[in-house]
């Protein structure tokens, strides 16, 4: 087991290198670079474009060098100095921009995973063990609604409902008066007051999805001979359900972890813009649009790393859960 984990972590290194190259190539693929964007904006607003300034900037940012030199500079700075480069647009080091946003993204991601699990686990099990009951139909209805409603629309509806019925402002993670405050208990409570909205918005589709998956998985497992065999030896029904079929049917809960992190980061961009959340989504979208390449590249690299970590965690948990995976059968 330890060997397996070490092997997996060692595999990360070549994988990250390949990913970093792909990322760099991808963000360079669109025609032009950050300077062309700047020039275009300047031309649009009627400003004089100074040729000498452009050449100076080009040299300063190293944009005149060949692609592989740019890549090597970028990656060696990250690996050896922890320096992710400077953002053209923000005019400050990339590291200053991303860390806090990344932290909030991870908090929101983990929070919505927990939300998804807490809600979908008991409902899914009940729904399967009471198939075609009233509650099962009700949950199914809400499940389809939740899955079919786009996240950002749900966010808009919640914000509108909160404002027009209760006079709440739900954007952001803090009330304006706490925004610049140092951490305190009151600030934490304020955070919780705001946090539930993005968690519900981000978690609804996932919850609906997981309930459906758990329900159908469990329905399959309930018919398996090992369930009947356990029943035939006299195990009580409640214990039987949780110990035998549920144990197998929770696989998607675990394997879902790997996908949740990147999905939240890419899919949550629009929600984050609507709810003005300080997560990576909106900034990354902007960086990609304006070809702010070091910022966008660093974000993508971070996301890839998170995805790899998520997959590793889910693989380890799956191995713990199922001896057949553990022993490589």
């Amino acid at each position, binding site marked *: 087991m330890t060997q397996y984990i070490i092997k997996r972590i060692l595999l990360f290194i070549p994988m990250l290198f390949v990913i970093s190259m792909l990322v760099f190539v991808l963000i360079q693929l669109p025609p032009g670079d950050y300077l062309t964007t700047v020039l275009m904006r300047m031309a649009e607003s009627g400003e004089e474009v100074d040729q000498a300034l452009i050449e100076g900037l080009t040299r300063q940012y190293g944009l005149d060098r060949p692609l592989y030199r740019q890549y090597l500079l970028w990656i060696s700075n990250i690996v050896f100095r922890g320096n992710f480069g400077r953002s053209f647009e923000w005019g400050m080091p990339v590291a200053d921009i991303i860390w806090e946003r990344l932290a909030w993204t991870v908090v929101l991601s983990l929070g919505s995973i927990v939300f998804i699990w807490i809600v979908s686990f008991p409902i899914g099990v009940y729904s399967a063990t009471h198939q075609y009951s009233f509650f099962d139909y009700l949950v199914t209805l809400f499940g389809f609604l939740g899955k079919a409603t786009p996240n950002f629309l749900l966010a808009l509806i919640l914000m509108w409902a909160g404002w027009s019925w209760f006079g709440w402002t739900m954007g952001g993670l803090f009330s304006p008066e706490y925004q610049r405050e140092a951490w305190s208990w009151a600030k934490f409570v304020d955070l919780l007051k705001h946090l539930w909205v993005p968690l519900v918005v981000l978690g609804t589709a996932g919850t609906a999805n997981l309930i459906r998956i758990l329900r159908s998985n469990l329905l399959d497992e309930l018919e398996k001979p*090992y369930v009947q065999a*356990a029943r*035939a*030896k*006299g195990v*009580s029904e409640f214990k039987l359900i949780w110990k035998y079929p549920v*144990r197998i049917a929770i696989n998607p809960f675990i394997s879902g972890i790997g996908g949740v992190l990147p999905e939240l980061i890419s899919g949550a961009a629009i929600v984050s813009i609507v709810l003005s959340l300080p997560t990576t989504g909106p900034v990354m979208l902007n960086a990609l649009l304006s070809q702010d390449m070091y910022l966008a590249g660093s974000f993508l690299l971070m996301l890839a790393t998170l995805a790899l970590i998520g997959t590793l965690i889910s693989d380890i948990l799956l191995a713990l*859960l199922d001896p057949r995976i553990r022993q490589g059968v």
Partner: protein
Amino acid sequence: MDADQPLLEIRDLRTHFHIRQGTVRAVDGVSLSVFPGQTLAIVGESGCGKSITAQSILRILPRAGRIEHGHIHLQLSAGGPGRGEIVDLVGLNPKGSAMREIRGGEIGMIFQEPMSTFSPVYTIGHQIAEAARLHRTADDIEPRELVLDMLAHVGFAHPDRTWSQYPHELSGGMRQRAMIAMALIGRPRILIADEPTTALDVTTEAQILRLMKGLQAEFGMAIIFITHDLGVVARMADQVAVMYLGNIVEQGDVDTVFHAPRHPYLKALLRSVPRLDPAENIGLEPISGMVPDPFSRPAGCPFHPRCPEFMPGTCDTAVPQLLPAVAEPGRTRAACHLYT
């Protein structure tokens, strides 16, 4: 305990399935008796209701299935909490504690597919010990010791190792041995074996059958052996009940059933068995026609559309009774209008 007194007596059991397409009368008026230490074989084609009969006894029917009628009288063991009383299993709550005491404690069951009757995520030892903890509470021995002892009984050379093995680490035959150990760990007086060797190759099958006979002699339990294989019946059974479409069509002791069959279905079934004996090698004779659609059972005798001795006006109108009403030596009881 009186050996003439049946341990288990089923009277006119009717188990029906209510599903969207209609009602399936899977078991439709079955009466059977199981005597201490004896083996009763229930034979029939797929879908004849033999497994549903077994599941009705243990009250582990699928959700759509319901016992509509009949009694299943079980004599509880004198040493157990039931103190030798006779209970009607049909009257018990299938999820209640009384029924759970009986499952595994009074009646054990082994299943057809040794590949999937153990949960893949728990060790063999854990799953057998669970049954020991449920039913051997009176014993002052550690469940682990009981399990190791039982594993040795069913033929594991290294019970210690098997204890911590997972199901996928055992072969099909070994898994079926482990399954037998799990069914017997609660010391049931009846063992229901639902096609226990169907999924195994013939060599393994022979070993498992020998093992079951040996364990029966040792523990003295009765066996209800469900199979479609007449060869297995001949080896294992004392009494035989032949089922067709939810009914028993012929019943008797094993010698009489094989040497003096009366019901046309059983005769046809015996003719369809391949033989190695050259003198009798007259070719295989399949039973004509197909088992009818479960939603449209034929009126009268359920076998009449396929019967070579079909009598119009009689067989398609009245349902034949199992006769004679009381078993006579040297003669089977058959449900056929030829003998009424």
